[in-house]
């Protein structure tokens, strides 16, 4: 038995050696032929487009595959990850190790501020101002990727998405309760007791997802005090504990106390709040345009409409200010003198050129993009049309207020504190906690 085993082992070792030798020989042959062909350049790419279940993710994955087909001399090593925490961890690890990803997606502002300051992320202003640039251009598009307030010139990212919150309304529920689509927040407060009596959540909100809470906070602040308030807050002219901000937070708290978001908003995350609206449990919700395709799964689809968010009667001048974020922007880390530079820029242009948005426009039958795209209204999905019509009337907007601050963890601090509004904490405590963190940062700078 032992001898048989030894014989088997000898034979398998011989087979391995033989196969290894053959492979080396063929590998050597391949090397000889490839050296004659153009040298292939490998670049690294990272995004959150890695989930084929999500339509926009799938689109960008296919777009990347198309780039590789059309450019066999460029090999793209795709390191994409869907989940945000995992994405941030992986991305930061590559930067810390000294080998940052050549081209990656981000949300600008504080997301990459330190990397811009350290010179890791490169200025692409000469790329986007060149004559052959075919991607997004125009006022406001690059605001989140402009760090001139920090004394740094240049543009550091090209956005691929415009994320803007709109009001989704289930008119069947409103009709059932004898109500109309609200124009103002005062209308919403009047409707709330009626909707609650009939067993509906007036406005779905997944407060477990902290970001959604801050989208609301930002929207209310803009609608109360306008765009100047954001600048004054960031510059320190206005404080979180000041009268204006306290009025914003107190108003938000009063909405919660009056049941505008239902009783258990703190237990729902963003997915749950969308589900509540789609299932007909909530009369309204604030959400991005990316959820429009999901509305088709609702039995109330024909009764759902999309419109701009309500406004305050006292401040009609701010009614067309929106919460807007430029999302999933591409940034690069490759120097101009690097042999990979041309390949990386080629990929950047390919993923952000006009054709990208035209194709998406055809796929989704409409949309809001970071550049003007000729839209064929025939065939545009109804909700998307309503969305685009409302969006066209916007007068301005900004991202979450917390992303504009210099302190790196402002967003986390504000999101953590704001969420506690839904857990019964008092507005003045929340404001004081946020202001304290900001003051500590300034004092220790």
């Amino acid at each position, binding site marked *: 038995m032992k001898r048989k085993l030894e014989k088997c082992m000898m034979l398998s070792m011989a087979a391995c050696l033989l196969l290894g030798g053959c492979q080396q020989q063929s590998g050597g042959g391949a090397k000889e032929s490839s050296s004659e062909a153009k040298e292939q350049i490998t670049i690294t790419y990272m995004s959150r487009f890695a989930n084929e279940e999500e339509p926009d993710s799938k689109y960008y994955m296919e777009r990347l595959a198309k780039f590789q087909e059309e450019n066999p001399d460029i090999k793209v090593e795709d390191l994409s990850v869907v989940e945000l925490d995992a994405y941030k961890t992986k991305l930061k690890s590559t930067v*810390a190790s000294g080998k940052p990803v050549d081209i990656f997606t981000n949300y600008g502002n504080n997301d990459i501020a*330190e990397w811009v300051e350290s010179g*890791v992320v490169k200025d692409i202003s000469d790329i986007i101002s060149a004559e052959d640039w075919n991607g997004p251009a125009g006022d406001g598009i690059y605001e989140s990727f402009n760090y001139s307030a920090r004394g740094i010139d240049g543009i550091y990212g090209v956005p691929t998405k415009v994320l803007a919150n709109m009001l989704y309304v289930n008119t069947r529920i409103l009709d059932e309760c004898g109500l109309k689509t609200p124009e103002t927040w005062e209308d919403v407060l009047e409707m709330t007791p009626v909707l609650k009596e009939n067993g509906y959540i007036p406005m779905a909100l997944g407060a477990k997802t902290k970001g959604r809470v801050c989208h609301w906070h930002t929207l209310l602040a803009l609608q109360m005090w306008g765009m100047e308030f954001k600048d004054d807050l960031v510059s320190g002219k206005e404080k979180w504990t000041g009268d204006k901000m306290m009025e914003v937070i107190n108003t938000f708290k009063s909405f919660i106390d009056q049941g505008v978001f239902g009783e258990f908003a703190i237990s729902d995350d963003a997915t749950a709040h969308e589900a509540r609206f789609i299932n007909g449990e909530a009369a309204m919700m604030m959400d991005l345009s990316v959820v429009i395709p999901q509305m088709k799964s609702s039995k109330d689809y024909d009764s759902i409409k999309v419109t701009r968010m309500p406004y305050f009667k006292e401040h009609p001048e701010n009614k067309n200010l929106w919460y807007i974020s430029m999302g999933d922007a591409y940034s690069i880390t490759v120097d101009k003198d690097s042999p990979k530079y041309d390949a990386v820029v080629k990929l950047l242009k390919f993923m952000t050129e006009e054709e990208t948005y035209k194709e998406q426009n055809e796929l989704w039958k409409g949309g809001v993009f970071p550049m003007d795209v000729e839209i064929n209204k025939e065939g545009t999905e109804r909700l998307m049309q309503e969305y685009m019509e409302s969006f066209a009337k916007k007068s301005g907007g900004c991202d979450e207020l917390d992303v504009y601050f210099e302190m790196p963890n402002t967003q986390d601090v504000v999101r*953590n504190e704001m969420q506690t509004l839904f*857990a*019964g904490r008092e507005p003045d405590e929340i404001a004081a906690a946020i202001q304290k963190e900001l003051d500590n940062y300034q004092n220790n700078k």
Partner: protein
Amino acid sequence: MRLLPPSRKNLIIIKTINKGGKKGLLKLFDKSPFLKEKNMSNNGKKNKGALPLILPAFILYSAVVAYPLLNMLYTSFFEWNGVYTTPYVFAGLKNYASFFQDESVHIALKNIVIIMVTSVVGIVPIGLFLASVIQKKFFGLRFVRVSYFLPVIINKVSVGLMFTFILYPMKGPFAQIVKLFGGNEKVNVLGNMQLAIWAVAFVLIWCNVGLHMVLYSSAMAAIPDDLTESAKLDGASRRQIFFNITLPLIGNTIQISVVLILMNAFKIYDLVVALTGGGPGNSTEVLSTILFKNAFYYGKFGYANAIGVITVLISLLITVVINGVLRACRKD
């Protein structure tokens, strides 16, 4: 290998006999067959040939464990934002001072203590009870054993999602049970800043009790049957057998189990993220989540490493203290 000769110190003395209320020695059990003499192999000579054999493992250990730990210790004395172009800036003990001044750390430490104490108080008695139940043969034993062990192998993220539903106010099973007992079905455990951490602790107990049930069960199975049988013949009750025979004999296992429970509770991360995300606010933050945020959200790698070093030191301290306390209890 020679066995030690029987002597008084090798004997287990079983106390408390129910014979007319008199206390005294019931039985002397010779545990010498279970003891091995130390250092009896190769007559105490050092084996030089072992060194080359352990070298690969040592190199691997150094690369994977020792080097990262030492690097973490080194970086903890510097400020660094995680960008390779940014030099390390020597900060001395500033990161450690920040640790003790950081309010979120105070909350995290309080949460860790709650989780650790609750875990020990919950897992040990329940695990012992379940282990004694599965020692008996009955119909469905295998099903019971598998059922209680299943939570151990379920992914913590899935567990978090599952309990989000279970603890959902009004609609979740927990709310219905509370309503059944006359309570308020609108109770929102995960949305309450005071209660959320207790929910995390409870879920952690649920996840881990099966593992410790198996540990205790294995230790109990190693107790010789003749010991318990002779105790029964001499009139000892089940309670007496459990507390005077079983528990002392599985003392080592309980010690290991407590250390494992405390370490597991101390380094909890995935369950917190899945169940509460550290919220509401930061009421369920733990050291792992704070370390992660400081490193990968705020870019404070030096401070994050300081948290890591302190975490290691606290873990070592807990292990030493617990081992000492339990050893002292067993000697008593």
